[in-house]
Each structure stands twice: as C-alpha cells, then as structure tokens.
C-alpha cells in the first residue's frame, strides 16, 4: 500500500505543480468571472458606444407617424431609440445610410385599402430586433386603423386579439411538469458539460501520463518496484483526485462570481446555483456519474496509453474512446428537448453512455429508482471488468516497444503480460 500512495502522491503533485495546470485553472476562473459579469461589461460598452439609435421616418400618408411613435414608446418605454419624422427624399436618406450618418430609415404609406405599406432600409440586416419592433408596432397601428374603419370599440379589438392560453399537461408517469423540466434542463445541461469535459480532459491526461512514462522508460523502473496493476490504479486515482480538486475550485469560483455579480441577467442563474429550489438528488447523481464516468474512461485510457511507445501516438490511440464520449454527449444533448425519446432509454444502460444519458434521464424525468441503480451497477461491473482486463494488458503493454498504435496490440500485450 505504501508504494500505492507514493505513486498516487506523485501523480497528483507533479501534475498540480506544473505551470500549465496553474495557468489553465487561473484562465478558467477568469473566464467564469468574465462570463458572470458579461451583461455588465456589455452594458458598459453600450454606454461607451454613446449614440442612441435613430430611426428616420418618411410618412407619405401623414397619418402614421404619430401613432407609430406612440406605440413604439408604449411597447418599450426604456428604449433608447429615437424616432424622427423627416421630409428628406428617399434617395437622400439612402445616401445618408450609405455614408453611415444614420443607421436606417422607414418609408410609410397607405394603399387603396388603407393597408400600411412600409419599407425599412438599412445598410445590412444584422440588427433584427429593430425591424421586428417596428413591424409589431405597425401591426398595432394598422389594427387601430382597421378598427376605426369597422367602428369597433377598443374592447372589441382587445377581445379579437385575445391570446390563446395553452397549458401543457404531462400525463406520462415519468414526466415532470413543464416548469420543473425547464429548470432541470439548465442544470442538467451545465452538469452534462462538466462531466463531458472532465472525462475527456482527465482521461486524456491519464493516457498521456502513461505514455510519457513508457516513452521515457521510467516505467521499467516503476514496475520493477510496484506491480503494474497498483501503478495503474494509483495513477487513475491520483489524476482523478486532481480533477475533483480542480472542479471544486471552479465550483467555488463560479459560486462567488455569480453571487458577487448581482446584475439582472445573472440573478436568475445565481438563485439557480443557490441550490435552494433544485432537486438535490440531481447533484448527487451528477457526482456519482462524474466519478463512475471518470473511472470507466480513465481505466480505458490507461489501458490504451500503455499500448503506445511515443506520446505522439496517444491521440490516435484514444480516438475511439474519445468518439465514444462524444457519441454519449450527442445522444444526451439530443434528449434535452425530449428526454423521453425511446432510444435514450436503451442507450442509458450502455455503460459508456450511462454517465451522460442516464444522468440526463434521471435529472429530467421522474425515473423509478431501479433504473439509475441498474445503470450504476452495470457501470461498476464494467469498470471492474475493464480494470481487470486493463491490468492484464497494462502488464505487457508497458514492456512493449515499437511502432504499436492499433488496437490489435492488445492481444500481443496480454500475451506478453502472461509471460
């Protein structure tokens, strides 16, 4: 056991002390703070931009400008948009748009049936909110005109435009209410990302570590003092602990960031992370599936890493494994909109997909408890089998040198390990 902890400590400390590790950690934390303060920063930039948007209107009918301005004001009282009537010709205004003196202008007229004809002219159509706002406002103006024509009272108009109220009612036994689902969706999505990235990152790290030790031949010294199996699991556990520490640091940073940046946009997210109104089981499952997912893929990564002799070949060797994780993520992401899709149920029991797909289902549906438990049990068995199998490959793999970069070498490695 002594050797196990020495290797564990070495795997953890050497990695934790590297410059690249410190830099990544600091960068991610900076990123979290930046992201959480993004609305504020954008506001600041907006303020600096200075000039409020100006919409020039050519009203050929003479009847439309005032109602339009009034409706625009009523729809968005905080709007910085200023509307100005002008008598400049369209050609003149077009010139002004081209020379970027103004952003856009609107030409309004009424046709024979008293229907509004409008042309919105701008340099490019990057800004879509303004035309939409204008369109909505014009719609209201037109409704008013038509109502006058038909001599409808404003109540009658209101009743005409009454919104349909649709309430979604899920009667499936496993479904959650729409509200719950929306809330769960964000949490599940965030945690899915964390699991996905952590698994890809740290298992890649394991494979590279093993390959580095092998290519630098330090492996021969290591496994002559400690059995390859012990070495492998100490390594997996050491890097895993490193990952957990890193994620906890990020978590704390994120928590502080969202707490301190009490801007309007992040308030929702901040209350979200206050852990008050979310299902604590979702977090428990996130931790379980992160750990199991990590161990599953890390064991596989160590196995694959032991087969290559040069660190350059690592990426190629772990490619199939990476594809598995990506597939799991795509499957899970496809279920964010509808977690009850039939294939997700089957996929969630395939051990390499379980950490993401089962987590999605358990986070967004009211599953019977046996389903996640069965998924966890299948994963545990797979990890055990993979660990046992991996240890056998590892034993021979670490002694095998040469241009080995295909999965066929697994057989050779087992053979060598047996001898």
């Amino acid at each position, binding site marked *: 056991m002594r*050797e196990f902890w020495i290797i564990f400590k070495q795997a953890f400390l050497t990695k934790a002390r*590297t410059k690249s590790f410190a830099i990544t950690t600091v960068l991610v934390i900076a990123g979290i703070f930046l992201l959480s303060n993004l609305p504020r920063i954008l506001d600041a930039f907006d303020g600096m931009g200075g000039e409020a948007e100006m919409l020039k209107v050519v009203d050929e009918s003479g009847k439309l400008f005032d109602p339009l301005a009034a409706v625009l004001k009523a729809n968005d009282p905080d709007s910085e948009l200023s509307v100005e009537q002008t008598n400049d010709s369209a050609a003149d205004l077009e010139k002004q748009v081209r020379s970027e003196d103004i952003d856009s202008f609107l030409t309004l007229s009424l046709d024979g049936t008293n229907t509004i004809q409008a042309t919105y002219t701008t340099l490019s159509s990057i800004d879509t909110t303004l035309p939409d706002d204008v369109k909505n406002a014009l719609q209201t103006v037109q409704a008013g005109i038509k109502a006058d024509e038909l001599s409808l009272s404003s109540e009658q108009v209101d009743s005409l435009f009454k919104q349909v109220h649709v309430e979604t009612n899920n009667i499936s036994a496993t479904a959650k209410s729409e509200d719950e689902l929306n809330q769960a969706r964000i949490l599940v999505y965030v945690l899915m990302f964390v699991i996905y990235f952590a698994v890809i990152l740290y298992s890649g790290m394991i494979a590279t570590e093993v390959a580095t030790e092998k290519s630098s*031949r330090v492996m021969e*010294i290591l*496994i*002559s*003092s400690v059995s390859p199996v012990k070495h492998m699991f100490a390594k997996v556990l050491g890097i895993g602990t490193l990952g957990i520490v890193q994620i906890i640091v990020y978590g704390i940073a994120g928590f502080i960031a969202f707490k301190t940046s009490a801007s309007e946009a992040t308030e929702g997210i901040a209350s979200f992370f206050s852990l008050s109104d979310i299902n604590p089981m979702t977090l428990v499952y996130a931790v379980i599936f992160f750990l199991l997912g990590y161990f599953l893929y890390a064991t596989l990564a160590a196995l694959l890493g032991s087969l290559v002799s040069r660190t350059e070949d690592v990426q190629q060797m772990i490619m199939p494994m990476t594809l598995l994780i990506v597939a799991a993520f795509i499957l899970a992401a496809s279920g964010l909109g509808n977690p009850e899709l039939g294939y997700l149920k089957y996929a969630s029991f395939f051990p390499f997909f379980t950490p993401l797909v089962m987590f999605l289902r358990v986070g967004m549906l009211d599953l019977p408890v046996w389903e996640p438990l069965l998924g966890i049990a299948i994963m545990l068995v797979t990890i055990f089998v993979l660990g046992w199998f991996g240890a056998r490959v590892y034993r021979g793999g670490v*002694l095998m040198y040469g241009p080995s970069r295909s999965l066929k070498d697994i057989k050779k490695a087992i053979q060598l390990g047996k001898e």
Partner: protein
Amino acid sequence: MTLKIEHVTKRFGDFTAVNDLSLTVEEGTMYGFLGANGAGKTTTFRMILGLLTPNEGRITWNGKPVNYSTSPQIGYLPEERGLYPKMKVEDQLLFLAELRGMKRADAKRELGAWLDRFDVPQYLNKKVEELSKGNQQKIQVIAALLHKPKLIILDEPFSGLDPVNVEMLKQAILDIRNSGATIIFSSHRMDHVEELCEQFSIIDHGKQIVSGTLKDVKRSFGQQNVRIRSDYPLDALSAVPGVLSATATVEGAVYQVESDETAELLLTEALKSGPVRQFEIEEPTLQDIFIAKVGKEHA
C-alpha cells in the same frame, strides 16, 4: 546473497529470446554480460527483475525468487533513459528512492552526497531534460544506487559518458561492490568488462556461447596471436601447420595460432630465414574472443 540463474529459457511465440542460460553471481562480485544488440541481455535483466517470467528454469536471489518484496534491495539502470524528462532532479530521485522503500529524509541526505561525488550538485533543481546526455546518465546511475541496493543490474551504464566520467563511475561501482553488493552489468565495451568483472558471459541469439572467469576463458579459447618482427622474408611461415591466419605488418607479420607448440614452430621457421628482432605471444583480448565467437555464429 547470491544471484542464481538456472537453465532459463524465454520464448516469445516462436522466437527464443533466451535459451538455456545459467550463471551464478556471488556476493561482492561483478558479472559482465556481453552480447550483440538483440542478443537477449535486456530480456534476461527483465526476468531477473521479475517483469517477465521464464518459460523454463528458475532465477533466485539469496535462494528465493525475486518479487516485489525484494525490489527495495534491487537497483536497476535501464539501457535507455529511465527518468521523467520534465521532473526536477531532486523530486525525481526522492520519488524513486521512496518507491524503493527508502525514507525521504535519508534519501535527501544520501542524494546530496551522490551529487557532490559526481560533481553535479548544481543540477539539484534542474529538470532532467535540461541536462546533457552524460549528466542525465549520472542522474540515472544515482537513481539506481541511491537506495543502497544489494543486487544491482546495470544495462549499459557507461554509454554516453566521456572518459573522465567513465572513470568516476567505475570507481563508484567498484566501491559499491567492495561494500558487498552483487552486480551484474552489460556492455558493448570489452575493455570495461575486462577491467571490472571477475566473471562474464557472452550471449548470442539467446545462447550463452562463452562463460567463466576471464583467465579460464582466455586459456581455453585455444587461440593466441604471435607477433614476429624480422628484416627477412616470412612468407613460408603461413604454411606452418596450426597457423589459423596470417596478417602482414610493416615490419613482419601477426599469426593466429592454436597452441604454444605452433608458436615455437613459427619461431624456428622464422629463424631459418634470418635473425628475428621481436617475437611475442600475445594473449587474446576479449575483443578477439567476442569477434571470433559471435562473428563465427553470424558467418
């Protein structure tokens, strides 16, 4: 504390890497292991370390098989660099020493002494990849010896070192041997083996083709060189029975002969054509033996 290898055979599929190898290394002695590249030296070392299991025969150290409980007593220097390139010398050596069962504080003390001895104390906090090849080799040697092993396996310990450092390292190894360690080492350099080892083996294609003490091997080699310098023609001498080959030199010739009798015959013949200025029987060097034995196998 004797290392015993008895009739060990190791096969990888159809390929026989080591074939019926037997040798004994007594406590406090050094054993030389010679062989061309791919002869099976590293495989043998890996079997001694317990990384590979022989198909036949057995290897014992002090009467017991080698396994992880004995590994703290073993020091191993692999042929190629066996260090973490990005780790600092101190961290690295302390880690490896701890792994071999040494206490960190003891290892730290010993480490200082070793670095001083090898004239490299300034590298304590350098990364291994920043050192020159020769200095890396010194660190590698320290890694193999730091935990005071009783059985030391050195695979090509002198490669990449300049003559001054080779002497420094030889002295360190001799000191350790004198303190009672059992050492087995491989080399391509015959002169090192000749100088350091009481006993040695030459293996070729997994087979032990020569083994024993230096003196016995040389005596039983059955070949020696006769060097004759003379101002008179020596052409007739190559026809003397027992002469294996003749090479003309500037002032005479060198003959490979089977026995002392042939040498005497040569002298008699040479004197017939005129006075001889030099007559010398040279012992074969290990180099001659190696080339004769291994070269013959290859031919």
